């Protein structure tokens, strides 16, 4: 009997150990909208369309237990020969016949079980849609397409016990709860919150994720959280800067900085962060924008898009060039067919080159001018290879065309200085670099959240560094006296200099441009903005002390305006009436980047009932002389030319013409 008991205990222990080792199995389903950012159904049109999706991958994903449920809708024009093939990292997963109408396919992912991946797995859906035997007719057909539904799901089997901090951030989620400690909050904590907010917005850009800001008491609800809810608790200080416990991540301000700087390195559950520096160059190559070497295959218009923001380039360019590296399969020697490389910038064709025929094709380099006037704060660069086989050769079996775009392609050019007056359209381009966020002394949760919402909106659009410093009004005076621009910590530099292999270079350290985000109306602050607060009145256009418009809504309101502070771009948020309601009004209507994109002008007013915006005249700044000089520079130049011309004429009379001897 005793031996059976012992055996049973041992078996239980083994089972427990195995269970512990195996970890708790978790089954999760994510729609393509949640995990791949597919906002709308994807349309595959034409005879040989394809769709590439990058799905997140976790180390303990059991691909044998995982699958993809693909929902599609095909047009009646799709004939019997239409097929759909699914590849994962170019490994064939499944093939199906396509039938007109709505259908659902289950695609097992077991073939990927023995493959190794990075952070994502590339899932490619290649369709062959046939209407007739005539390829050319099919190319021109307008009713040959199918929809891949965005609510198709990725069904994963995961082991939760061995999650790391990195996994915590990468796994798709619906809700993030940021929990703050008891007030008052220090400046580093406020800054950490703002950066974290922006980091999350950027990390889950394009995905339906909501970020909540909660007081300390809300942490109790974390125990009831669903798998798609994440909790992040900020604390002023702790033994560990980063600590993961179940569904909750605990962070100190230094931990936030570390996470933002190098989140892929947090492959564990708890960490101490020693030091973090921000030193990041502007993005230039396609690789920096997340683009990888891409090969396009097929016949017809083969397109690839790259999205970039001006802020990521470093600002508004005066001239912008694209250096494109590409290669393609050669065209037949008797080139009856034609192939073009076309480049579109925000929908406008800016470059066309006929792809030459020839047996041998090396990697080509194209230098393409991108007109600055076509650029916006967010831009889409579309590279298209248009290949049409020779006329008459419309039979199936025609050799398809292949072209590769290399990730080493890059942007280059010269930046222009931003011109006043600034508007919302200049965000985030001119509001990138290091932010000085001015918060009221002892800010409330709502004020913090508002600042986070605005800062997050700016940083969600681009990928510039999340460099930020929180200031309270008392710090502004010292700031006006002049502080050094963003620079690595001198103590760190001194330490570097003492190491043996350190080489001193003459190239200057990266200096981030600076801007302000000012919440509230600090006493004594004279805003250099088109709108100002006077009591409960919003006044516009302070032209030399003259106000042209004043408004006093009965409801509490917030006003967001674009201006300058200390000769740097600044966003101001004023409130009037009950502050919590005024801020709530702002939060209700200002969702983030999507709202920022739509704002026109430079003054936006928010009440609980709605919001509106306008373009008000910017006041002349205290240092208006230089601005006047800049504004009227052409007139001044003309005047100077006149004076110089007269002087040269006098010089001619005096020094060149001969006097009688």
């Amino acid at each position, binding site marked *: 009997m005793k031996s059976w008991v012992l055996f049973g205990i041992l078996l239980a222990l083994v089972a427990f150990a195995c269970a512990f080792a195996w970890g708790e199995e978790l089954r999760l389903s994510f729609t393509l909208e949640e995990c791949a950012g597919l906002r709308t159904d994807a349309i595959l049109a034409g005879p040989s369309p394809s769709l590439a999706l990058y799905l997140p991958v976790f180390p303990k994903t059991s691909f044998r237990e995982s699958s993809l449920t693909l929902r599609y809708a095909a047009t009646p024009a799709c004939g019997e020969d239409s097929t759909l093939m699914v590849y994962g990292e170019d490994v064939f997963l499944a093939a199906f016949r396509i039938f007109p109408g709505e259908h659902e396919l289950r695609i097992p992912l077991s073939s990927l079980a023995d493959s190794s991946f990075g952070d994502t797995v590339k899932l490619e859906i290649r369709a062959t849609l046939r209407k007739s035997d005539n390829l050319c007719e099919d190319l021109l057909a307008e009713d040959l397409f199918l929809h891949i539904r965005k609510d198709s799901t990725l069904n994963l089997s995961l082991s939760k016990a061995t999650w790391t901090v990195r996994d915590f951030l990468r796994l798709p989620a619906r809700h993030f709860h940021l929990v703050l400690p008891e007030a008052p909050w220090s400046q580093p904590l406020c800054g950490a919150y703002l950066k974290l907010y922006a980091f999350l917005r950027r990390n889950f850009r394009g995905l339906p994720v909501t970020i909540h800001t909660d007081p300390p008491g809300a942490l109790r609800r974390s125990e009831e959280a669903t798998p798609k809810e994440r909790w992040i608790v900020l604390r002023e200080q702790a033994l560990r800067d980063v600590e993961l416990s179940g569904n909750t991540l605990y962070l100190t301000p230094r931990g936030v900085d570390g996470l933002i700087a190098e989140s892929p390195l947090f492959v564990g559950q708890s960490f101490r962060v020693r030091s973090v520096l921000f030193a990041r160059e502007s993005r230039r190559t396609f690789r920096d924008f997340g683009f990888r070497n891409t090969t396009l295959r097929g016949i017809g218009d083969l397109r690839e898009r790259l999205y970039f923001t001006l802020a990521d380039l470093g600002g508004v360019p005066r001239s912008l060039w694209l250096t494109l590296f590409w290669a393609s399969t050669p065209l037949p020697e008797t080139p009856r067919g034609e192939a073009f490389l076309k480049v579109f910038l925000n929908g406008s064709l800016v470059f066309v080159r006929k792809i030459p025929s020839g047996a041998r094709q090396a990697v080509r380099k194209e230098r393409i001018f991108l007109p600055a006037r076509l650029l916006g704060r967010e831009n889409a660069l579309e590279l298209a290879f248009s290949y049409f086989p020779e006329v008459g050769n419309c039979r199936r079996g025609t050799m398809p065309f292949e072209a590769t775009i290399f990730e080493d392609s890059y942007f280059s050019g010269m930046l222009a200085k931003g011109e006043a007056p600034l508007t919302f359209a200049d965000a985030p381009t001119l509001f990138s670099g290091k932010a000085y966020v001015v918060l009221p002394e002892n800010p409330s949760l709502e004020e913090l959240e508002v600042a986070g919402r605005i800062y997050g909106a700016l940083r969600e659009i681009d990928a510039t560094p999340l460099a930020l410093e929180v200031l309270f009004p008392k710090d502004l005076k010292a700031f006006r006296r002049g502080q050094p621009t963003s620079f690595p910590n001198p103590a760190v530099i001194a330490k570097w200099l003492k190491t043996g292999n350190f080489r001193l270079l003459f*190239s200057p350290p990266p200096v981030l441009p600076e801007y302000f985000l000012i919440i509230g109306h600090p006493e004594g602050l004279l805003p250099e903005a088109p709108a100002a607060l006077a009591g409960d009145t919003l006044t516009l256009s302070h032209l030399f002390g003259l106000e042209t418009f004043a408004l006093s809504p009965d409801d509490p309101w917030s006003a967001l305006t674009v201006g300058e502070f200390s000769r740097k771009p600044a966003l101001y948020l004023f409130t009037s009436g009950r502050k919590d309601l005024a801020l709530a009004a702002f939060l209700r209507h200002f969702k983030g980047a999507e709202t920022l994109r739509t704002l026109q002008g430079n003054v936006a007013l928010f009440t609980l009932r709605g919001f509106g915006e306008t373009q008000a005249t910017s006041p002349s700044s205290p240092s208006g002389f230089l601005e006047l000089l800049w504004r009227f520079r052409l007139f001044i130049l003309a005047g100077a030319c006149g004076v110089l011309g007269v002087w040269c004429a006098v010089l001619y009379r005096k020094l060149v013409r*001969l006097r009688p001897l």
Partner: protein
Amino acid sequence: MKRKLLGELLLERGIIREEDLEEALRFQKETGGLLGEILVLRGLVHPMELYEVLAEQGNLLYAGRDLEELLQSIDRTLLERFDPQDLLRFAFFPRRLNQGALEILTPFPENPHRDRWLEENFPKTAIHMALITPYELDWLLHFFFKERFLKEATAGLFFRAPEESAARVLVPWQWGVLSGILFALLFGVFLAPQTTLKVLFALVNLAFFAQVLFKLLVGLAGSSRESLAISKEELESLDPRKLPVYTVLLPLHREPPEVIEQLTSAIRALDYPQEKLDILFLIEEDDPETLRACKAAHPPYNVRFILIPRGFPKTKPRACNFGLAFARGEYLTIYDAEDIPEKDQLKKAVLAFRKLPKEYVCLQAALNFYNATQNLLTRLFTLEYSFWFDYLLPGLSRLRLPIPLGGTSNHFRVEALRKLGGWDPFNVTEDADLGMRAHYRGYRVGILPSTTFEEATSHLKNWIRQRSRWLKGYLQTFLVHNRRPLHVLKTSGFRGWLTLQLFIGGTPLGYAASVVLWGVFFAWLFSRGKLLEPYFSGPILCIGAMNLFVGNFLGVYFSMFAVFRRNLDHLLPFALLNPLYWALAGIAAWKGIGQLLSRPFFWEKTVHGMFRRKGP
């Protein structure tokens, strides 16, 4: 009837004593000069007395007793047939035609060159002579040909070689280029200020460094042993009887009496036969005080006063050109009023000219100061001069590069000087210009191993005035000789052209740039780099830093090794203040640039006599 000797006649008349005659004759034996000249120079005979006796001896008429009457008797229409240069060369003056015979006035009745010339130009015409003294000849030439001499002195170079005259500061294409550059700068500053300033800063720094480097290389070349050495034995072996007549031009203007006195002593002290010295005091017509002071100093009779008529421009080279017309010597030199040349300088020059090939038309002696230790400014000035004359100019000569002549102690072959057209009266550093012009016309300038001591300006304002004139003149020279760059390249090669850019142009522009660069440095220093960071970073900052340290170090270095040749070790510590000296020169350079544009021909007069000296 045997002609009586001059000495006998003078004794008979009781004009001289026996012992005077004996001494004069002994001297004549040594030097080979004319007895009459020796007696006049020694003050033993008045020129008029001498010529009366000579007239009696030669059975001629002395016509200089009554100048008014003489003037009346001169046929002005006859003068139009004569070139005054011929009259000077052959030392005669045409009086009138009288019954088919030509009457001439001359101090030298026996002159075969003149007789031959007259025979060629007035064949089958009898020549009747009357005597006048050399001073009366000068006076007549001055009286009748003043305007022509003046015209030649002022406009001669311009009419013969307008491209070499600074009468016009800029030629049209230069003006076009300058205007273009100014407009380009204006547009650049307005439309792309950062790029424009960066490019400008880079160019200025590069040019500055290039001219400093050039001076270093030339200075190093000049530090090797002198190529033209003249030994004591060679000097002693010179036969005074075979020494040629040497003209010394002394342009004077508002000189204090003590300076004139010093000058007169210096002339007397020259180790050269006095009767072979042809000294010309060049005095402006509107400067009676200097004339009075000169007369009061009782200079020897080999000194002639040449009055320079009023005119434009009122400059030293114009006066020298006017004086050149009256020069009688085979060689010529110029001294300033306060100069004290080494006594044997003229003999050294004669020897050097005889040794060197004919292409050497000019020799430059070194200049230095006798009041070097008067104050800080004179010390620094001495260091600079020592480097300039003891290293730089010899370096240029060694490298066969054009040499800008110094202000005084330039020794010329007179004939070659006349061919060169004399000095440019419109150039305020006519000496530098002449040196360059000589080189570009295929002549050479050598370095004379001798020194003239002069007074260093000891007052700052006076120094700046003087220096601004020099730098203005260098700019004039730079502009003039850059009118035909291909010609310069052809005649003197790339190195000669480079000397014009880096040495002549580089000197004033380098000083001007150094002030600006110092300003930029201090702006950078006091703003901790913030103010200038957008404009000066990376390689541009490197170039600037290089000039700051290396350029200034070289300036100090130049001053330091300048002391060795003259054993001026006590001045060594002051070499460290060279950057300050350059800053002063920078101020003067900007003043010079401003004057170039507003008053290009204005001569900033340096005040002399501020230091009283007791002896060299």
